[in-house]
């Protein structure tokens, strides 16, 4: 329970390191692993999820907190970019790959394939 853990932490009943460990364990346990693509996702994000706000999330090492890796803003202005889905997905994939390589040298757990 986040609410109580934060409270115990703030008066020293729960040590800082134990708080982190418990929080990471809870985050890991709450991950929903799936190969199915989704357009919306809960805040503690499933793998392979795509939020409508354009933020991706990726889980790799289970003991590490989740990061927001990159930001893809939906193209809402007509004529500024090609509006084909294929191009958009390709661009997203390329950015994702670059970010993955840069941030996690252990390899890519997930890739975004074209449907």
């Amino acid at each position, binding site marked *: *329970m*986040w*609410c*109580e853990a*934060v*409270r115990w*932490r*703030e*008066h*020293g*009943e729960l*040590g*800082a*390191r*134990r*708080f*982190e*460990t418990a*929080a990471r364990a*809870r*985050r890991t346990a*709450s991950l929903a692993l799936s190969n199915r693509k989704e357009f919306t996702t809960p*805040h*503690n994000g499933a793998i392979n999820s795509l939020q409508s*706000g354009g*933020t991706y999330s990726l889980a790799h090492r289970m003991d*590490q*907190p*989740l*990061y*927001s890796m990159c*930001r893809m803003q939906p193209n809402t202005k007509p004529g500024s970019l090609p509006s084909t889905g294929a191009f958009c997905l390709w661009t997203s994939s390329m950015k994702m790959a670059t970010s993955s390589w840069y941030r996690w040298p252990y390899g890519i757990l997930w890739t975004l394939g074209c449907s």
Partner: protein
Amino acid sequence: MSVWNYVVTAHKPTSVTHSCVGNFTGPNQLNLIVAKCTRIEIHLLTPQGLQPMIDVPIYGRIATLELFRPHNETQDFLFIATERYKFCVLQWDGEKSELLTRAMGDVSDRIGRPTDNGQIGIIDPDCRLIGLHLYDGLFKVIPFDNKGQLKEAFNIRLEELQVLDIKFLYGCVKPTIVVLYQDNKDARHVKTYEVALKDKDFVEGPWSQNNLDNGAGLLIPVPAPLGGVIIIGEETIVYCNANSTFRAIPIKQSIIRAYGRVDPDGSRYLLGDNAGILHLLVLTHERERVTGLKIEYLGETSIASSISYLDNGVVYVGSRFGDSQLVKLNLQADPNGSYVEVLERYVNLGPIVDFCVVDLDRQGQGQVVTCSGAFKDGSLRVVRNGIGINEQASVELQGIKGLWSLKSSFNDPYDMYLVVSFISETRFLAMNMEDELEETEIEGFDAQTQTLFCQNAINDLLIQVTANSVRLVSCTSRELVDQWNAPEGFSVNVASANASQVLLATGGGHLVYLEIKDSKLVEVKHIQLEHEISCVDLNPIGENPQYSSLAAVGMWTDISVRILSLPDLELIRKENLGGEIVPRSVLLCTLEGVSYLLCALGDGHLFSFLLNASTGELTDRKKVSLGTQPISLRTFSSKGTTHVFASSDRPTVIYSSNKKLLYSNVNLKEVNHMCPFNTAAIPDSLAIAKEGELSIGTIDDIQKLHIRTIPLNEQARRICHQEQSRTLAFCSFKHNQTSIEESETHFVRLLDHQTFEFLSIYQLDQYEHGCSIISCSFSDDNNVYYCVGTAYVLPEENEPSKGRILVFAVEDGRLQLIVEKETKGAVYSLNAFNGKLLAAINQKIQLYKWMLREDGSHELQSECGHHGHILALYTQTRGDFIVVGDLMKSISLLVYKHEESAIEELARDYNANWMSAVEMLDDEIYIGAENNYNIFTVRKNSDAATDEERGRLEVVGEYHLGEFVNRLRHGSLVMRLPDSEMGQIPTVIFGTINGVIGIIASLPHEQYVFLEKLQSTLVKFIKGVGNLSHEQWRSFHNDKKTSEARNFLDGDLIESFLDLSRNKMEEVAKGMGVPVEELSKRVEELTRLH
């Protein structure tokens, strides 16, 4: 505020984490040593109680504090290990009265998972080795050699991963440990291991015990010949040993956190639980064999985190959740059935979970009102810089030129007369039989002229000094007994007297010394100095309180202070003060057994010197600024201790603590004159002359920060001040424990912001927790409201899915619920924002507007929101900008776009900081505190060239504070003076778990650079205790990186410059290339920040 920040402690940590008892400072001296996270205090147990000996900072968070005695040593040594894996062994140098470092080192490992349950450090009772459990699965051994020196450390693999406690057993041929651990099914067990030093490995120990109480968490080793170990659980206490002895006793469910051994043979122990109950555990035994366990209730104390049995039934109870205590265990119970008598109480502000800053007088000086303590020891603490005067009576009187108190006879314990001097007359006030002050006459005194000095004298006489004469008056008849007249043309300018001596300074530099002999004034000596005399003092500082062998004289023209011997008036010492400002007051005084000469100048500066009472030698010259106007110095007594009152435009009390002079301002604007006025009706009171007023009152305890405690017997969690209604409101909760279950009741309480009287209460629903509270107003509504954010914490939920926002108005001193709004999660934070209400609800930021309904009532209506956080715990706002402190994802910056009614993210810090507090220093720079006791600053890059750069908050400052910060708030503890440079420096106050109140001040770059150089220089002169490194201590450190501290200065280190000896000060100043006086002034000005 700026990038360059100065971090300083206003209130030291007070939460006790460790304590131990032993013969540290001498073979026959019993010491209590207390650790308060980053500080250690060493006390000496005397018949008068605990006497403080030393109080020093440690460059690290103390994880282990143990006293041990190697073979053939007569005194104990102190082992300290820090959380960042540094250790040292300290011993006491009796000749120099200081700590020596016997050994030091680093026991960190490159690999290994730091243990979650807290580091363990233990020492074999026979001093063969030190054992450390720092990483899961590893037990580090530091062996001793035959001479008690430490040898090279090594690791032993430990199979148990979830270790709860480890202790060495007594009386074992080989070093043997007992390990309390939890298996992967959450069952708890103990097993023993022998440490094979040669093989550097464990050997299976003599016994083990499986399936203990599920709440077992503490081991107590029992000395030989009983031996064995006591295992403390939540419902059972077990004793077992190598002889298969197993004894168990059920206890009422409780969590015992602390113990102290009473007897050297280990037959009795004191146990303290999380409800503050003190029990005595007795091991009944026959023929060196334990036959049973017995537990007895002793009474209630603060919730103990450490218990140290001292001697003769006196026990020190150290606490992290309430005040620490010195208690006496009586043989007979009191009417309440308690055997515990509290002898002494030591203030503990920790844990500070929230605070607000209340500026009642709107002078820029805030009172900090903290939510302190936990569980039944919860309280509010009002922390105020400076000493308060509790005015009892006052009368309007203009033009007071002097004040003195007189007793009706020399040996009376109380004062009776108050002599009030004016420019051309003197009035006398006296306490009548009804304890009222009324005007009276002392016939032998000259009431038609200004009095320069008054004093009780021996032989039941009174002394009055005027410009023309010195008069002796009988206490009984109040008639003139003798008189000395000033020679024609040489009127008395300044004078001083004590019980038997009078020193007069007349025009032309004449100094006249009189003594009282057989009720007669006898002129003993008369000399002429080369310059006019500006001030004199004859206060006795030697063994004879009625006769002084030294006189202090301040001079015009050559700006000097001189020490003259009495009765000859021979010059012993001349001290040139320098500059052009004349000394206006001198005082000889003894504080805490140390003699000083204090010399106050006309510009508000004060010189202090150590004075050798036998020789008159002056040493250790120091200079501080107390104000801008001439100062008048006077001694007074409070609670049996002598202090000095400095009357000026910024009245100050000068006092001694641990043989060190300290200065604390008095919370009065200006005091012209002061004298002690100790009456039976109002003991230890003072008479104070202000502009146009004479008042009499008592003085608060003499300390830098004055702390008032408002006990709650429940835990306050969030607090807020509302100036308009003159109230404070806070969220609190109380534990309710019955034999069946444990529950909590949560409240919103309202109290008066001056008297702290409880005015109103609102009880939240079952399972509803108060999480946040603010005072705010809304657009198009002139009222001011309290808004409370809550969460429904249901046992079956993993996360709160429901909460409320409650809007209260204060009407006739009562909380009136105006609006409630249900939320889909816990409301962790609330802010007033653009006439609306901003709420952090679980992972979302939600903005509500205050809407007027057709029926005239209001409601909160959701306008827009922003998500993308793990858990938005802390928010601060400034203009249209919002800073969010996330549980895991550091700081992000959001902006509210009015036209679009949208909240968007502008930038974020991509480090994975686990936040505990955030604040906006200004529009561009934000500060955060995180889980690993670091603070850091980030800056918005509005002018960056690319979107990516603009979307990243740049980290511009990093610093290891060593304290867990729960709250950062703008504010100041000290009065902001417009004529002071320090008054222009913006400050943020922070509060921590260990009770620290600190200040972060943003400095101009030039000043920062200067002080950074000073800090670098000081590091060379001031070595940390145990030779621990300051640079390593202050480096930013978490699991992922360690980096040098940058753009933060350690104010505690810098201000310790003022504690150096004069010689060392000069060396530091030489290294800085500035005069020592200038350097002292600049550092002293910094102390005015807190």
